[in-house]
């Protein structure tokens, strides 16, 4: 019932699936490039690109109440230390997705994550 052509087709489809799979494993896809924008008092202070092979660094930023330390770990960002009375910004922890932000009100410091596309294009959920 199953002809020789069928067997060849099955092998071909399996190989094609394997090739696409390994292709994605090796190259990934560059569609989800994100950046972190550091703004002080509404003005852009620094823009750093994130990603799987992004930077791993600590930035010390002079602000109104003293200094803030921003830690960037590949594709996520957090406020590690901040000279401000309540430290809500530190307690927010890591952010990594476009549209998320950490705000330190006393220091007027904003850490914003943006994608290569505007955040309003992001879809929350899709039904099938």
């Amino acid at each position: 019932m199953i002809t020789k052509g069928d067997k060849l087709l099955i092998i071909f489809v399996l190989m094609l699936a394997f090739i696409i799979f390994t292709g994605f494993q090796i190259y990934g896809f560059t569609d989800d490039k994100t950046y972190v924008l550091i703004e002080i008092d509404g003005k852009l202070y620094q823009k750093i690109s994130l990603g799987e092979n992004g930077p791993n660094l600590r930035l010390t930023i002079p602000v109104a109440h003293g200094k803030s330390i921003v830690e960037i770990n590949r594709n996520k960002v957090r406020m590690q230390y901040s000279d401000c009375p309540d430290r809500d910004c530190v307690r927010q922890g890591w952010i990594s997705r476009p549209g998320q932000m950490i705000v330190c009100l006393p220091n007027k410091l904003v850490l914003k994550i943006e994608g290569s596309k505007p955040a309003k294009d992001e879809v929350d959920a899709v039904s099938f």
Partner: protein
Amino acid sequence: MQKHSKMSFLSLLVAFGIIIHIIEDMLPVPFPIPGAKLGLANIISLLTIVFYGLKEGLIVCVLRCIIAALLAGSLSSLLYSLSGAILSTMVMAFTYHHFKDTFSLVGISILGAVTHNFVQVTMASIVLSTFGLYVYLPYLMVIGLCTGMFTGLTANFAKQNLFTFFTKTNF
């Protein structure tokens, strides 16, 4: 008389397709991948192609998708199932008419299933305007291979039984 019997048989096929489509939507899918499904309604498209041809196959699958979406579905599911069904029917009809000796119904069904998966992922990528969805394609292809084999075997048995029925009753 021949025309009327053809029309009634085509509407029967559409009705079968709708029921299979709706019941299949109710079955839980054991894979956590969007778009993975059994594709049982493909049996009907395949049988229509075998008995009549491309034009009738397209009529049956388009009617089946629209009515099933109206009865138990949503607009987005109509978009995905219709695009996939039309293209896979075309591919299956082409293969059936030109490579009938190379591939059996199993192979043709596998081709249809993989085409359906590819079109669905492409459609979803266009709708969501992101090409990251192609990551699902290899998984969907392997699942489509298995379900395509299954539906192809089923269509093969149905075809044999229907042929003997037709010759017995001079349909």
